[in-house]
């Protein structure tokens, strides 16, 4: 039986489906019986979701004249 501390160490592998079948079953069995670890795994999942959906409000940047000039004089290699 895994301890809660061990669940804390393995939660990302579990969420990313990056563990073997046996370990996955052990984690699932623990989560069935432990609401605290369910809450923990849910928090980590929400953290990942937040990072994935985060909208980065950087200004839409424009290439400078050097890059545009380099591009314009680039030989066409598709011919």
């Amino acid at each position, binding site marked *: 039986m895994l*301890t*809660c*501390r*061990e669940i*804390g*160490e393995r*939660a*990302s*592998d579990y969420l*990313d489906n*990056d563990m073997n079948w046996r370990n996955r079953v052990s984690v699932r069995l623990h989560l069935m019986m432990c609401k*605290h*670890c369910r*809450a*923990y795994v*849910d*928090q*980590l999942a*929400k*953290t*990942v*979701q*937040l*990072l*994935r*959906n*985060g*909208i*980065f409000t*950087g*200004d*839409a*940047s*424009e*290439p*400078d004249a*050097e*890059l*545009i000039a*380099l*591009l*314009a*004089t*680039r030989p*066409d*290699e*598709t011919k």
Partner: protein
Amino acid sequence: MKRHKPNAEMSDELLVVALKKGDEAAFRQIFARENAALLAFARNFVRESAAAEEAVQDTWVAVIGGIGRFEGRSTLRSWIFSVLANIARTKAKRDGRILSFSDMGFNDPAVDPDRFSGDGTWLSPPGRWSEINPERIVGGRQLFAHAMVVMEELPPNQRAVVQLRDIEGLSAPDACDILGITEANQRILLHRGRSKIRAAIEVLMDPDSGGQVGPAK
């Protein structure tokens, strides 16, 4: 970083073909999409923003020069990130910086050990985040801003892995290639990085939760 894509934008395949022909609209599109993410990524290697900007500019020069050799074995974005990683690494080395990609951030526990009793069960269990819905823009935006502040405090290797995997959505093998780390180390760094961001959000949600702010020792 992630941005939503209007339908008018070209697919990566078309972009590559257009870039090979020197198409300016295609270049402007890929530049607008990736430049901010590249700048953030460069800062994992060189801290000063002028040096990071220089590394990104050099990356675009290398992309324009090297797109003819791009064969689509990785995604266009993974390829651009690996070009930048090589350039930034060389620059960091030249400036005498020792990169800590292999020796930092592996040993911190994912969860503060004080939150467990001796037998490994929770002493101070995590609360329910039922009120958090990361897809809801309002709460999501504040939380995302907070997560970005915590990102800044992560060791560079954890930050780089979290950026590539969770923010940019690259695959684990691509992230390993770009950073030159093993699959096992990638998993450790990703979990450590995510765990610190989780802990910081937990503090924001419930200041009495016993979580820690900032990077754990």
